[in-house]
């Protein structure tokens, strides 16, 4: 009576667990093959290392975005938060190395507070997160312009910039290992451990069915607010790395929120929450960056980036929606 009936599939697809990381690994592998064919040099250790270092900010943002999305919400504010962080850092540091660490701490606090506000407005005032974080996005854009009178002021210290542009040289086998990559590895491991903890399992449960979670004693509002704080913190770290790598401008974080969301969706995480792995989200970001690199090698205009991103979002959501409704 209790035998599990085999579901008949029209096509003999390999049994892939929904929300797993196999599909994204497959896509990544295909892209790597294409890169190897076109530009074998790219896969040399040193250039691969610096590619990973360059990709660290978007991967971290994808991890941050993952926490929010898997709990059933969105965070559109991260792009402008990154911009704000970079501009604020430049003005406060103003070239003074002694201010580096205090400002780093301040940026982390800034990111956490923005996440806290996003979270509280969404959960306590019941504003849909799409709107909350869009509002936060606009507020931050305007505030930064106002605060800096329309042009970024000051400059980052060399100590600050080293996180994003320096590396440990002469590592055996790997060549140079960027600091950014080391930060990424540490935080990625932390993210994976967090998702295995009680908090992580509860976070996914909240995204899956908040009613059940609430009736099982979960403080849904608190759990989701923490997710927003994690996203804000991820934006702060991304800003520190990006500021070091590409410098100060009002464009520092432009479009990153959509990049992060695309990466998360590409990584097999369900919009609306409840399914997907943080590793998938981070691999999604890596895949996206690799795709852009590949487009570059094939001479595709960089202007197509956002078009490609849009197409990926639509395709990924459509695929996951049709697959989950057909069962």
């Amino acid at each position, binding site marked *: 009576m209790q035998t*599990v009936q085999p579901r008949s599939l029209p096509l003999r697809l390999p049994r892939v667990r929904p929300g797993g990381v196999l599909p994204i690994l497959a896509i990544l592998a295909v892209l790597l093959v294409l890169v190897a064919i076109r530009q074998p040099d790219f896969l040399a250790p040193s250039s691969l290392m610096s590619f990973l270092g360059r990709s660290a900010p978007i991967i971290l943002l994808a991890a941050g975005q993952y926490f929010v999305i898997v709990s059933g919400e969105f965070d559109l504010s991260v792009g402008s938060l990154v911009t704000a962080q970079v501009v604020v850092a430049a003005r406060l540091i103003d070239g003074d190395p002694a201010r580096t660490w205090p400002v780093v701490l301040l940026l982390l606090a800034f990111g956490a507070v923005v996440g806290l506000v996003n979270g509280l407005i969404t959960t306590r005032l019941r504003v849909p997160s799409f709107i909350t974080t869009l509002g936060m996005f606009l507020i931050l854009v305007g505030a930064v312009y106002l605060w800096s009178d329309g042009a970024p002021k000051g400059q980052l210290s060399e100590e600050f910039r080293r996180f994003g542009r320096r590396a440990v040289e002469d590592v055996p086998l790997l060549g140079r290992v960027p600091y950014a990559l080391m930060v990424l590895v540490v935080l990625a491991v932390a993210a994976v451990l967090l998702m295995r903890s009680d908090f992580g*399992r*509860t976070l996914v*449960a909240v995204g*899956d*069915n908040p009613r059940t979670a609430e*009736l*099982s*004693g979960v403080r849904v509002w608190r759990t989701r607010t923490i997710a927003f704080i994690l996203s804000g913190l991820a934006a702060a770290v991304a800003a520190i790395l990006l500021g070091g790598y590409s410098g100060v401008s009002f464009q520092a974080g432009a479009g990153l929120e959509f990049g992060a969301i695309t990466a998360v969706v590409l990584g097999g995480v369900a919009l609306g929450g*409840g399914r997907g792995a943080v590793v998938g989200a981070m691999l999604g970001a890596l895949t996206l960056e690799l795709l852009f690199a590949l487009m570059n090698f094939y001479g595709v205009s960089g202007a197509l980036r956002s078009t490609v991103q849009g197409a990926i979002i639509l395709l990924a959501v459509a695929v996951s929606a049709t697959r989950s409704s057909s069962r």
Partner: protein
Amino acid sequence: MSDPRPAPLLTLRGIGKSFLGVRVLDGVDLDVAPGEVHAVVGENGAGKSTLMKIVSGGYAPDGGTVELAGEPRVFRGPRDAQRAGIGIIHQEFNLLPGRTVAENVYLGHEPVRRGFVDRREMLDRTARLLASIGETALPADARVGRLGVAQQQVVEIAKALALDARLLIMDEPTAALADHEVELLYGLVRRLQERGIGLLYVSHRLTEVFDLSSRITVLKDGRRVTTVDTATTTADELVRHMVGRELSSYYPERAAPEDLGPVRLTVRDAGNRKLRDVDLQLRAGEVLGIGGLQGSGRSALARALFGVSPFTTGDVTLDGRPVRLRSPRTAMRAGIAYVTEDRKGEGIVPRQSVLDNALLASRAVFAARSGRAARTVRVRELLAAVEVRGAGDDQEIRFLSGGNQQKVVLARWLALNPRILLFDEPTRGIDVGAKSAIHDLVRRLARDGAAVLMISSDLPELLGMSDRIVVMRDGRIAGELPASASEEDVVALAVGTVREAAA
């Protein structure tokens, strides 16, 4: 059934319907003459709503025919049925509160002049329509959101009439009405009859059924038990038809008087938006059954005790100490567990594993109390103890049968060692085997000293499991019955065979 009634407006023959292999309707015959009020009664789950959905085009029957004025019809959807002249007034209204009466009545088929909505025409027609059913006091340009419930119901009816309904289905039309409004509805129903409209009247409340209908069809377990002329039957006879069945299933032995422990939970004079004057005692070692109709306040009681929609008045004491159950967390800390009625919507996190589902509550509330590893071991043991079958602990719970899902939910609560367990329809939609496993488990918990409150619409279950039965009606406790009570006793208290005087 050879009587001098006019040719029937609606004839149902041999209607059957199954959901996922469960037969909810089986060979139901029924007819309604023009100008007749035909009442349909039965317990929760007897198949009334499904039958009404078939008549109004919401479901397609698996078998049987629907004839309208002698012509067989197949409705492809509710709009099809509307066009054929069948209107349905649901318990929950389907109105736009920000729009006027006229805009609601003509929603989707507004009178048009030169491509634009002809507002004047729409108001005129609505006013005429309302006048024709004697509702002259209701202005056609009033905003629906400002109207009382009874008037909103009139708007719903006018909406159906604007589509030239010849047959109206009313599903529990008085559920939302105050006593004086019920009289107004009676008048309206009679005027609809005079217009030659046939009415299918679904209600739990026998008083109304006797006041309004000319014939009554009793459904039970998806079959038609009988159709009787209202004038020749009595409420008692009707109740017997509604419940009449053999008590054949096995239930675990009840608590002996010496098994009963001290009073765990006392509720005094408690109430909230849905409950009034609730007095209740729950002892360690007993299973207290809660009977009553859907919406009578049974679930509201459990949800108040679990802090989901807390009591706003009155006192609750737990083991002699006053407590305020403000939220599920406070209730859980006080040792209360709650297995909800809506398993899919509130009981499981569908895409998470069996293990994650079973660990949900322990992780949320008592995370610091025990080590992670020890906790996981314990929950795995519990899952084995409640005999979740056909699935590993890592399988997503949505692929399990309802019975196995319910066992996982039980394991989630047992992990907290609760002293008071609230069960809301613990065996609804569960196969027979899992059902008796859950019955045994509930009894075992009581024997081990837990206090159990069990809500059930399944009368044999309620009578078979409970040491004592409290029946609710209209948000209040209508009475208490001993374990030896009959199904008729429970139903009589639940439907109120005599209408109570207003408090």
